[in-house]
């Protein structure tokens, strides 16, 4: 059993990691932990990462050894779905009190394990180490070993206290715990030549079930999914799979690679986001399985399914393409592979104005360049302020991101869609991409936006909050290397009708959502008077640059 620092170092040396492969030996030894900046850090800790990675195992009791903060503040907050047991949603914690800190928490932990076994009798218990017991020297490995022996049940130590590093490191340490204590400890009830493992798939909102019917149809069996809707027996016997797909590469590449090394299970990295990626993934699974001895007709059957599903998905997306023409998307995500979503959105006819590449590897970036062209606007890091500016300047019509930047978009009265783990819709596979397109359409064309962008009746022209906000932005020059043509576009907050205070955005939206062609129609659908602003509205309708008159008003617009 290796020590925690040794395990951490081993994870840093992960040869399967594309980022690592490009580093020198000294760089690699330093590890991937970016030094966190106190006072401007964001993101979860290693315990968070480990818990997130393993919690979707549904029949396991997940026991957090620490003070109330670690579990009390975080339990039952993930959107993974289970097809059966619900034990994983129960929060178990030793809730260490001051006396435990003084006298040590090992006895309490042991009793807690016993209590869980007496009450719930789960097939296994995962025990998560946290910072405080790690500091006071509680040896959870020893307690788990003793408890395993005494109760005749796997009690698995997950040694990933928060302060050792980032969430990502925690994902990998969780993987190490599986490799060391779980995988290969049981045998499957039976095996087939069609058995696969999915690694790093969490079944958020039940999205795995958008793809599973296709597997079922092809006769492919998911022997184990780590960890979405997974069960202890499945992961313990997952070493008998014939092939593996690594779904979220960042999280558990060490598991995939070591399972290949130890058990000869070949793996590939793929995704089920978007039509092309789904097809590629199915194809690769079929080919890997055939290579490992599955009957060859699998490839032909898979191709047939792909052809059918692609046609269905394309037909379902087709009606949206004209609606999405010219609509611009800003994609800010780390969790899901950016390029994978990029391809998917392009298939629906959306224009990508930028995508975040904070967590992408060099290969990912090349791929994005390939998809989006040389002008691809790749964003390493964007402050909320810059995001807001991008949204308000109408460089983009909708933002897709994780929950953290949600309010940047919403508070700017801009359409937004959640594509990270807290989302409530499932977007995987062919069905999922159609759902994503539907959701984008709903968000973009909601009639609410038009109303929200109207200034309040008591706001004078050029003195509403949006204009003030824009003014504030303008005095703080920021660099956004976006598409040049787009930056020159007129800001949407500019005033068009000065009599009734109507801005360009409101008029543009009205024109788009009601297919307006005349000034009269515009005046019917917006408060614009159509008197002194008639020429400007005509310009907008004709797509000409707006002729500003009188000149003095320009400054206030």
């Amino acid at each position: 059993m290796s020590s925690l620092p040794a395990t951490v170092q081993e994870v840093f040396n992960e040869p399967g990691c594309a980022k690592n492969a490009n580093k020198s030996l000294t760089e690699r030894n330093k590890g991937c932990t970016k030094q966190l900046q106190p006072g401007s850090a964001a993101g979860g800790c290693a315990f968070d990462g480990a818990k997130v990675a393993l919690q979707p195992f549904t029949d396991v009791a997940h026991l957090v050894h620490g003070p109330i903060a670690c579990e009390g503040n975080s339990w039952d907050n993930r959107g993974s779905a289970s097809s059966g047991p619900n034990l994983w949603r129960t929060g178990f914690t030793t809730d260490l009190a001051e006396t435990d800190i003084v006298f040590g928490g090992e006895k309490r932990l042991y009793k807690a394990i016993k209590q869980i076994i007496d009450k719930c009798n789960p097939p296994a218990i995962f025990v998560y180490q946290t910072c405080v017991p790690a500091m006071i020297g509680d040896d959870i490995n020893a307690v788990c070993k003793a408890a395993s022996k005494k109760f005749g049940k796997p009690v698995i130590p997950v040694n990933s206290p928060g302060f050792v590093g980032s969430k990502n490191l925690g994902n990998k340490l969780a993987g190490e715990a599986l490799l060391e204590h779980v995988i290969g400890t049981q045998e499957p009830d039976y095996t087939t030549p069609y058995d696969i493992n999915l690694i790093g798939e969490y079944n958020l909102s039940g999205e795995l079930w958008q793809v599973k019917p296709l597997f079922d149809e092809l006769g492919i069996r998911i022997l184990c999914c780590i960890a979405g809707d997974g069960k202890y027996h499945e992961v313990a016997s997952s070493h008998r799979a014939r092939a593996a797909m690594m779904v979220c590469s960042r999280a558990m590449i060490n598991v995939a690679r070591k399972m290949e090394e130890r058990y000869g299970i070949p793996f590939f990295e793929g995704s089920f986001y978007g039509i092309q990626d789904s097809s590629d993934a199915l194809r690769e699974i079929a080919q890997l399985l055939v290579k490992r001895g599955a009957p060859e007709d699998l490839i032909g059957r898979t191709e047939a399914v792909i052809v059918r599903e692609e046609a269905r998905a394309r037909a379902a997306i087709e009606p949206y393409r004209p609606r999405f023409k010219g609509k611009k998307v800003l994609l800010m995500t780390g969790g899901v592979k950016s390029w994978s979503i990029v391809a998917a959105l392009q298939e629906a006819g959306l224009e990508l104005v930028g995508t975040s590449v904070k967590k992408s590897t060099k290969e990912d970036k090349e791929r994005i360049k390939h998809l989006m062209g040389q002008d691809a606007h790749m964003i390493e890091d964007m402050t909320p302020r810059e995001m807001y500016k991008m949204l308000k300047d109408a460089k983009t019509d909708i933002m897709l991101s994780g929950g953290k930047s949600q309010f940047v978009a919403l508070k700017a009265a801009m359409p937004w869609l959640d594509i990270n783990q807290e989302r409530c819709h499932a977007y995987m596979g062919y069905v999922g991409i159609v759902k994503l397109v539907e959701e984008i359409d709903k968000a973009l064309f909601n009639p609410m936006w038009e109303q929200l962008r109207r200034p309040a009746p008591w706001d004078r022209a050029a003195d509403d909050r949006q204009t003030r906000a824009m003014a504030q932005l303008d005095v703080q020059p920021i660099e956004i290397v976006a598409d040049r043509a787009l930056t020159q576009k007129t800001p949407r907050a500019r005033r068009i009708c000065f009599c009734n205070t109507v801005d360009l955005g409101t008029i543009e939206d009205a024109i788009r959502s009601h297919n307006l062609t005349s000034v009269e129609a515009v005046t019917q659908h917006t408060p614009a008077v159509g008197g002194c602003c008639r020429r400007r509205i005509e310009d907008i309708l004709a797509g000409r640059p707006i002729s500003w008159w009188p000149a003095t008003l320009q400054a206030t617009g």
Partner: protein
Amino acid sequence: MVLVTASKKACAVNPLKMSQPIGAAFAFMGLRGAMPLLHGPQGCTSFGLTLFVRHFKEPVPLQTTAMSEVTTVLGGYENVEQAILNIDKRAEPEIIGICSTGVTETNGDDVDAYIKLIREKHPQLDKLPLVYVSTPDFKDAFQDGWGKAVVRMVEVLVEAPARGAERNPAQVNVLPGCHLTPGDLDELRIIFEDFGLQPSFLPNLAGSLDGHIPDRFTPTTTGGIGIDEVARMGRAGWTIAIGAQMRRAAEAMQEKTGVPFRLFERLCGLVPNDDFMAFLSEISGRPVPARYRRQRGQLVDAMLDAHFQIGGRRLAIGAEPDLLLDLSSMLHEMGARVTAAVTTTQSTVLEQIKTKEVQIGDLEDLEELARTRNCDLLITHSHGRQAATRLKIPFHRAGFPMFDRLGAGHQLSVGYRGTRELIFNIANLVIADREENHAPTPDSWRGSTLPLGPSRRSPVGSTERSIA
């Protein structure tokens, strides 16, 4: 006498309690231009942040000193220093509120001393208030953290008035407990102002987390009480504390400034609001405005309409002590029986709960008690949703966090009007439950026999304390 028992389990199952540092951080969020800072590993902040964002559906400021394994060994001075400098530079806050965590308390980091050193070293921070509150994770609970943070705010930020300085009798300090929502504070402000009083809320979540659309982008809170206003609180005529958790803060205010205080342990229900109105009338010298005379009538009418639904309900409630007292008492006064009560931490108010036993425990305890005692109404925060599904009884969400329903920040429980709304909400839940799950069928009563002789359960209910 209420028996207060503590759970003897080694393992808390489905925690009801949230940790004290985030309770303290929550209090700082009611200050304008504030950046709460947790001194600990980044996970402590990340979990807290997620909770607040999901509860309020708002951007929430919360930073971390990002303690690592190495800095924990070496002590956290440099992290605190860097964090403060960094926040000062990037966020330009008006105040930084620092809360310790389990890690740094186990380590024994002396943050007060750190702050002294930092001030000596960085004179440019002279004008930036730094308020530190000690909040180890392994002690106490969310509402304690809130209470302690407000005590520290009073001690550090309020100016003691000069001797013989005149008080402004119309100025009133309000110290609300963390069980009040931004909506509650808005309601209270209207009430105070209708009496011609000028309230200063400390903290004032109604300014910061009420769902407004800010016109600036700041990483700190926008809205909330300004530190200049906090400084002037010493000139007020009265301090009104709401919830027993605020007693210490009110006492600290009195010690420092001599402003007398009155503690209202509850503001939900008819009688507590009668007391409240009478007190406001007394200190303002104005009669109770007609609006509240009408609202009182409306509340009385709501109680008349809803007592059919609420009367006799067997309530299972899990909440922090002050919220537990507030809600359970109001429902008790409507004829419900407080049959199972679970809370998070010790408090003087637990003895007043109208029941036999209050357990300091978790949601597993509450669920078990509710099942064995046949409760038919569940009140707790959103984490009670699994228990509610299993128990199949109507479930009213109250307290923090409420992440699976909208409008958490605007749920009302104070004043005549707030009480009226709450009563309607709960009564409607009961009606919906009856319609959905208890519609009579031809077999509903078949086979049920009335016991011969005296019933085994007295009409008051075996678990209920008899109240004279």
